[in-house]
């Protein structure tokens, strides 16, 4: 397998590797065949469950519940998606999650960038003190119960702020952003502009933000994914069903196996509930993951960049 694949693309190889596969020494050929097998198995192992879920979501309830789906959709239908979009719980929680994600991400990025900017300035008095203040929290925390008591004392239980405020400042992201600002915005620029009477606030908006687009994109991505997938805070701090985010409803349906029949408004679907429930789950997985996978191609180029910035030690 590795051999077949290696030939046509070897032209695109860089530097020293611009050679036909057949000209490689035998030991290398064996190496490439082995690594081709390894990589192909990893590819299949990662992709199969994803393809399976997608196929099952487009299959009919009968086909899914009788276990006929193995790789491709059987008996193609949209009944799973119909059931998802007729479920009031799912729709409302979907809306909640959108709200929490947008608001939460906005707060995260704001707090992280302002803090990173201030700490990136070498002239800031007490900079080391603040860095220690922030980094210490990465390694030690009060734990679950004291945090819960804090949330209760602040009267944040059963409000949307319980979903948005905890984790507003990710220290890790802040260090990434600070390192980025330090390495990409020269100190001379600060000096020169301040001589021209540019205040720190204006400098932030007209220089730091525009020049930090890459790091802002990375942080936005990380925190948006975090908020979209957030489950823990809802479990801890929300009891009011109308505030539930998508993940809590997902857990009820996917893991605890509770599909509330009365929530499916269509009587025909209620009848076919047993079968609908099976296919609904797969459709639900797709619907819940789709927004992230939609932006995936656009953000992919930032992955490596993001990790690279993070690995430059702050």
């Amino acid at each position, binding site marked *: 397998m590795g051999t077949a*694949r290696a030939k046509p*693309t070897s032209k*695109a*190889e860089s*530097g*020293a590797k611009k050679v036909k*596969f057949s000209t490689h020494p035998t030991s*290398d050929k064996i*190496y490439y065949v082995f690594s081709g097998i390894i*990589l192909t198995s*990893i*590819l299949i192992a*990662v*992709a199969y469950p*994803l393809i*399976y879920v997608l196929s099952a979501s487009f299959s009919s309830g009968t086909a*899914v519940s009788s*276990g*006929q789906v*193995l790789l491709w959709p059987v008996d193609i239908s949209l009944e799973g998606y119909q059931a998802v979009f007729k479920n009031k719980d799912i729709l409302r929680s979907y809306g909640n999650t959108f709200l929490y994600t947008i608001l939460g991400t906005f707060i995260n990025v*704001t*707090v992280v960038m*302002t*803090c990173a900017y*201030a*700490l990136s300035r070498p*002239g*800031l*008095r007490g900079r080391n003190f*603040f860095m220690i*203040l*922030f980094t210490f*929290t990465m390694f*030690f925390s*009060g*734990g679950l*119960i*004291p*945090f819960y*008591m*804090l949330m209760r004392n*602040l009267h944040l239980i059963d409000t949307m702020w319980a979903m948005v405020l*905890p984790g*507003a400042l990710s220290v890790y992201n802040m260090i990434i952003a600070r390192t980025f600002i330090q390495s990409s915005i020269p100190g001379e620029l600060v000096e020169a502009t301040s*001589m021209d009477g540019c205040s720190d*606030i204006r400098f932030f908006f007209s220089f730091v933000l525009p020049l930090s687009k890459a790091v802002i994109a990375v942080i936005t991505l990380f925190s948006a994914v975090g908020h979209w*997938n957030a*489950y823990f805070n809802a479990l801890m701090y929300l009891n009011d069903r109308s505030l539930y985010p998508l993940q809590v409803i*997902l*857990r009820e349906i*996917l*893991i605890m196996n509770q599909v509330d029949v009365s929530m499916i408004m269509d009587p025909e679907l209620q009848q076919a509930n047993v079968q609908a429930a*099976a296919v609904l*789950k797969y459709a639900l*997985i797709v619907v*819940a993951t789709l927004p992230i996978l939609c932006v*995936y191609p656009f953000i992919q180029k930032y992955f*490596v960049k993001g*990790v690279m910035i993070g*690995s430059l030690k702050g």
Partner: protein
Amino acid sequence: MRSQPLPSGRAKNGSKKSIRSGWQLYLFLLPAVVYIVIFAYVPMAGVQIAFKEYDFTKGIWGSEWVGLDNFSRFFESYQFWTIIRNTLLLSLYSLVISFPLPILFALVLNSFIGQKFKKIVQSVSYMPHFISTVVIVGMLVQIFNPRTGAFGSLYTFFTGNVMPDAFANPDLFPHLYVWSGIWQGIGWSSIIYIAALSSVDEHLHEAAQIDGASRLQRVRHIDFPSILPTATIMLILAVGNLMDIGFEKVFLMQNDLNLSSSEVISTYVYKVGLTIGAGDFSFATAIGLFNSVINFVLLIIVNFAAKRMGNASLW
């Protein structure tokens, strides 16, 4: 001049400006400081209830001190050893598998020929990282469903029997937990190594090739040493979090049937602290504190060891 860029033109424009300028920077710092004090340091002060008998009417500061009672109650409880064993087993198993595999994956991927194929493998392997824990566990439950799941169907397809329920078997729990973690994380965790490998000097490879080194030898003697510092830091971080099994996934995978191998410290803290009918805040906080202290000590020890061996360290 270059070595100390002043935040403002203090030297030339007088002191008035530098004060205003500094004040503005603190304004930028304010939201983060307020946040971290309220949401990180106030709960740290709340840790004192681990040494108290928390009384709702008296509050955190007014409750009675009881010394180490809560801790000894935990050490003596009949569940203590089960929980510690489960926590250690899950985390060590995770570490042993999920630390080296991304490194191997990165090395193999990096050394392979065929850019397009590499891109595809990479893109697909990152994908599961963005799927939420709830959905991952949901997928596990669905796929391992004996009747309607993919593995259930395959099992029936090949053996003709109905597959036993994997989630009801405590012995399978660690495997499900660790390998689904690999499935989700192998691509993402390898990014950092792939990034490190991309900065390896091409000339080293060329020189080695001229000397007749095989691809495998070059991977072993050029690529591998070049990611060793990164790997050391990742190992320090991983060992520092050894006792810190994420709550979410274990909690979501837990059920009454696999509880004997799935109850770990964090889920136990939740259970005794926050579920209805329990609500023993002091006891739960003590267990949580015990856990964080062990983590903190581990981190310091590993970092110290790494420093002594002359490798990279965190600080």
